[in-house]
């Protein structure tokens, strides 16, 4: 009953044509300066509310997760005909190619698996868009604002049924380290075995 009435409210709320909108790629592009200035304010805002670099990175990651969770559905509908990935390697390629193109205008530079650990993968970017205009102060040299991107990736993986932890590091440029849950790898192996 309760659900019904809220549904009604939503549909009768009006002409908000939001549900009718086409999901095709929007034509308008904004300038990178506009984004960079906005992102810089976001970093500063977060910085004022934390005590350490790792807290700051967590905050940025949380904001990224908001973005990732929302962009996932639209990209799956638009680029994959609504079909979701079920294999680890496919979801990783989806992120490296499709997601990166949609968000940053190009594929990610590299996707690698850790030699010694089947749970761990890396997405490597020489010059991540997010960091284009950011210079990291010496005293905070571990700070990598690509934590925001890490959050985007983490939410996309988790919402797709691949729970993982994603963190950003300075290594060969910027490396996003993806650590999948044990269960994800176990399931993937089971799927292979069939």
């Amino acid at each position, binding site marked *: 009953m309760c659900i019904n009435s809220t549904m009604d409210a939503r549909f009768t709320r*009006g002409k*908000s044509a*939001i549900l009718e*909108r086409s999901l095709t790629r*929007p034509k*308008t*592009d*904004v*300038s*990178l*300066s*506009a*984004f960079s*200035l*906005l*992102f*810089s*304010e*976001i970093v*500063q*805002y977060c910085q004022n*509310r934390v005590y350490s670099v790792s807290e700051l990175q967590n905050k940025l990651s*949380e*904001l*990224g997760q*908001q*973005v990732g969770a*929302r*962009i996932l559905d*639209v990209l799956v509908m638009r680029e994959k005909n609504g079909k979701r990935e079920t294999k680890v390697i496919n979801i990783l390629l989806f992120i490296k190619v499709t997601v990166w193109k*949609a*968000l*940053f*205008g190009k594929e990610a530079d590299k996707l690698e698996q850790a030699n010694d650990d089947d749970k761990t993968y890396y997405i490597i970017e020489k010059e991540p*868009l997010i960091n284009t205009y950011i210079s990291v102060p010496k005293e905070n040299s571990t700070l990598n604002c690509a934590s*925001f991107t890490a959050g985007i990736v983490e939410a996309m993986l988790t919402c797709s049924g691949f729970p993982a932890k994603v963190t950003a590091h300075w290594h060969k440029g910027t490396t996003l380290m993806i650590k999948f849950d044990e269960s994800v790898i176990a399931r993937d192996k089971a799927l292979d075995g069939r």
Partner: protein
Amino acid sequence: MARQGSRGGSESKKMSSELFTLTYGALVTQLCKDYENDEDVNKQLDKMGYNIGVRLVEDFLARSNVGRCHDFRETADVIAKVAFKMYLGITPSITNWSPSGDEFSLILENNPLVDFVELPDNHSSLIYSNLLCGVLRGALEMVQMAVDVRFLLDTLKGDGVTEIRMKFIRRIEDNLPVGEE
């Protein structure tokens, strides 16, 4: 010799408006969590916009080659046709001039900040795109114009269009060194 066109400066790089829109949405969501009421969120958005405007105007002047505006009408034209186009890829129309020429409205057809945004009922006094007011205020302050900027209408609130009202308050007198300008 003709002067270099308005794109004389280095062409600005473009990026996905979706990432921009969603990033802004994530910010507003975070502010709604961090502050107790919508008024404070509006204030914070305005403040952040102001900080952006103060820096953005440098970028704008370097890229656009526009000189000093001689009156508020020229300012309105530059904002709508050059600046909005350059940064957000849209061109608002300019309407509703006050008789004395110190007030006008920008009508935004499709504000990229609000793509796919719906306001929940419990945030009825949130001015979602208030960042823009701060940006305009901050940028104009850097070119010695004190301006009042506010949203009059907002499609998110069910209005037919989005209208930003700009009112010229006064010229900011700088203490310029003798002999300069």
